[in-house]
């Protein structure tokens, strides 16, 4: 079973449709016990950093995600879901992220067209492919990670994929990245033996 963490508003039906290609049972859930039980948990990308983190804390979902992380259960974060895996964000300086990866989240240069919206290339698993991005904030990393990182470039280089053991974050949206998104998801699930 794949569980999509439902922590408020946002358009997650598109993601649910996509994930149903990989598992007959996809649950959109706000139940902490489902987060612990699922084969794969997807933390989607909707809303703002601060309100999202507060909602996750208030509902007990953050605690469940933390337990799952510590137990080594696979978690995929998409867009804001990836950003929440870092320490903090310029978007809401008072809110603390999960801190599973070191680094923080900040804005693209004001010279650039934002949101960064459309297809951009990422080098991953030895292949350069285009994925669909929609975001105005991006991760700035400290480079002392053991994680594998795939970069994209928009004004500057930024991490588009980060993976360490059973935790993976992607800044793009695999669910709307056509065949490339489907291949990415297949490979990730294979790597995690799901």
């Amino acid at each position, binding site marked *: 079973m794949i569980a999509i963490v439902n922590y408020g508003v946002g358009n997650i*039906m598109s993601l649910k449709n996509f994930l149903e290609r990989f598992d007959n049972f996809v649950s959109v859930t706000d139940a902490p016990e489902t987060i612990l039980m699922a084969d794969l948990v997807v933390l989607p990308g909707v809303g703002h950093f601060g309100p999202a983190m507060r909602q996750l804390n208030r509902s007990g979902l953050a605690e469940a995600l933390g337990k799952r992380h510590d137990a080594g259960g696979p978690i995929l974060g998409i867009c804001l879901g990836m950003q929440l895996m870092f320490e903090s964000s310029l978007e809401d300086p008072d809110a603390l992220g999960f801190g599973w990866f070191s680094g923080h989240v900040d804005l693209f240069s004001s010279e650039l*067209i*934002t*949101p960064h919206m459309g*297809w951009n290339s990422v080098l991953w698993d030895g292949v350069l492919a285009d994925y669909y991005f929609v975001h105005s904030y991006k991760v700035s990393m400290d480079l002392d990670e053991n994680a594998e990182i795939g970069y994209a470039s928009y004004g500057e280089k930024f991490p588009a994929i980060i993976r360490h053991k059973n935790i993976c974050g992607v800044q793009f949206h695999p669910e709307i990245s056509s065949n490339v998104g489907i291949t990415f998801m297949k490979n990730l699930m294979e790597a995690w033996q799901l």
Partner: protein
Amino acid sequence: MLKKRIIPCLDVKNGQVVKGVKFEGLKILGDPVAFARQYERSGADELVLYDIGVSLEARQIAASLVAEIKKVFSLPLTVGGGVTVLSDVDRLFESGADKVSINSGAHKTPGLIQQASLKYGRQSIVGSVDTAYNFNLNFYEVVTGGGRHKTGIDVFKWIDHLVESGIGELVVNVIDTDGMQSGFDLSLLSEISNRWHLPIIASGGAGSSQDFISLFKKTHCTGGLAASIFHSGHLEIGQLKSNLETAGIPIRL
């Protein structure tokens, strides 16, 4: 590098893709699900679906159509047409739309874009504006109803309002060039895309690969939208993209 986007647009009425023919009503072109699959295969970068039906029933048909398309389609899908109140936005997102486009609804319901943007994030809300040059007023005027209703509003002031209300993308449809296949209105699109730093999609006038090359060389627009020239096969998307690449435009192949 961020790629320029080629976006086919489906006008849908009663569950069928249609094409407006001047003075002769509508011509039915076929099944939107089949169109969507074909466009994903041919290399389109995303798809826009406009529901041009007017009834409540049309709204419901459009929503179930979105759900049907999203089962077999994995590109971004923007849906618009008749989005007038927040519950229209809700219904389309619940059906699986990735972005919802608001046009005349922003006139009918002040505050609609703010509400939708607050609820779903501005990156999911597309502002769409139709404009035509008004020779009496000497400015590009916002029009609605496909050009039938004049608003008296200067398009630059209206875009300011849309951007402040919280849109993440802007579609500019120039009625003067729409359907002419004689090229985009480059001077207007260039002025708009210089002034606002958000993704701007040009619509109205595309007739050839050269029109898209000029659009991307002479303006900061990030995408080009067209309907009939793609539906009729007059311009094939794979060929267009290969021509764009040859011309040095960053494009997804």
